[in-house]
């Protein structure tokens, strides 16, 4: 039993587990500009993130390899977040005492810029509220998936991976 990783028993990965799979970017890097984070710990035959990256920052030895991002090469363009079929790429950016997390949002309604949304962690629990900073609509997304950037308290940057839009 113990050889089954927690994330395969539960269906979500903890930050500690993620850290064992990929190195996380330094605080300095997170402050410089947005950086892509793959949460894709399994060897699956899939390469769109690598193929779409304009700076070859996504490293993959073979089509089944786990994507590793070279954070120095990553320019924070978000194309990987848009194309990833597993919706497993995110971008994180530290700005002052806030964090901005970019994530796919394939649900209705798509929030508007400036709208307040409920922040959800990796198991769907509400952990706070955030503000939508940018929206790339489906028509402009390279992967037919709308992506949103949400500003939140900096301590939530590594927990929040989805949002709920609540409207009257």
């Amino acid at each position: 039993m113990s050889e089954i990783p927690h994330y395969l028993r539960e269906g979500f990965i903890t930050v500690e587990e993620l850290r064992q799979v990929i190195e996380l970017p330094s605080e300095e890097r997170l402050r410089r500009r947005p950086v892509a984070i793959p949460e894709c710990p399994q060897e699956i035959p899939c390469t769109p993130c690598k193929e779409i990256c304009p700076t070859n920052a996504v490293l993959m030895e073979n089509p089944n390899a786990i994507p590793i991002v070279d954070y120095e090469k990553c320019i924070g363009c978000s194309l990987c977040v848009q194309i990833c079929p597993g919706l497993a790429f995110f971008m994180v950016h530290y700005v002052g005492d806030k964090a901005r997390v970019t994530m796919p949002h394939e649900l209705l309604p798509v929030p508007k810029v400036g709208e307040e949304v409920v922040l959800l962690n990796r198991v769907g629990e509400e952990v706070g509220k955030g503000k939508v900073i940018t929206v790339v609509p489906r028509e402009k997304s390279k992967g037919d998936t709308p992506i949103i950037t949400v500003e939140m308290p900096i301590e939530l940057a590594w927990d929040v991976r989805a949002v709920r839009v609540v409207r009257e």
Partner: protein
Amino acid sequence: MRLTEHPVLDFQKKRGRKITIYFEGQPVEAYEGETIVMALHAAGIRVLGYSVHKHRPRGLFCAIGKCSSCLMTVNGIPNVRTCITLVEEGMDIRMQQEKPILPKNAKPPEWREAEKVSGDIVIIGGGPAGLMAAINAADAGAKVILLDENPMLGGQLVKQTHKFFGKREQFAGVRGIKIAEILEEEVRKRENIEIFLETSAIMLLQDGDEKLVVGVRKNKELVEFRGKAVIVATGAMEKMIPFEGNDLPGVYGAGAIQTLMNTYGVKPGDRVLIVGAGNVGLILAYQLIQAGVEVRAIVEAMPKIGGYFVHAAKVRRLGVPILTRHTILRAEGKEKVERAVVAQIDERWRPIPGTEKVFDVDVIALAVGLRPSIELLHQVGCQIKYVPELGGHVVIRDSRMETTIRGIFVAGDSAGIEEATTAMLEGKIAGIAAALEISSASPEWLKEIEKAQKELDEFRAGPFGRKVLEGIKKVVVE
């Protein structure tokens, strides 16, 4: 019960003209282009008939013409597969009585009247494997006949709203529904491909050097298809598992739920329990949420999630629990599913008393695997082997997808359960190999076969391909 808004699909554009059909004499609203059961489901009708002996209610299960749970009497004709038969204005739909009788004035078509259609290669099945086989065989110079029992091309791609994995040249990052559109367009623009929809292949025979496929179009016309080679790309059918109440209306195969909500825009229910955390179960959960349906839980008997982790993460972060080492004990309800009872299981797969949980759901989705549809291959006499790694009984074949009968090829899930990406590559190989065999293709096409074989190897090279490769070792002979 019809979906109007959806993050990925636009049903307003897709729906045809509004018409009226009659269920047990009562008018039901329907839209041209949808099948009978879809219209009934949208109107809240779940019970399609009653079993003969115990009079138990019967409902939809597979929704793609593979099982027989939706048989009804339509305009007096019994045993119509209402899941693949399109609605028509004024149709009279009835639940079947015991031993349905064909009306006296309905004459079965006579054999000698059968329409005859000839080509080089007959392809049975218009899914990803069949479409790719048709495109490649046609480009390699063959005259192709393509038939499918469903009213639309695309096979199961037409309900795959998620983006595909793989390489971008193999459509990775593109939604299945879009791939269906692209492939259909490619097929339709080729003049040497003749398409027959709503046409079931009911028999595959050797007739001298020729192959004969007997088809039935729209449930009433016999058609004889003849070719020098046949490619069987008939896909797969949903597996069932035993539990109390598994025959209640509301217990659906996962694919049926996708057909309801993604192909026809009909909400399958309000609250769903999914059995099986393989890719199909996980993807289904996400698609249900997209359609505005609540997913109460996913139960999985194995101690771990079988599908891709990323699919699991997608539904977990939207609050769906995944209960590993759990199984469904029973479905409860009078005329249809009202509750599901699940329990934890021990190392020997026995339910642990006291761990029962009750979920108030109106739909139970079974995503417990698929088995290849090999009936036609079986009947014509291809050598068959039981290979659990490939989903059940499969035919022996060579690396170019040719079975033990010369000129009969197989591709896609009917050759072993895998993915649409591998189905497309196998279809390409089978299409070209068939064209080479009947001498319509030039030897340069061999390179294309080798390229596709290499891509297959690459796709199967990771840990997820291991099981399939074990299976393939058992069925591929040279």
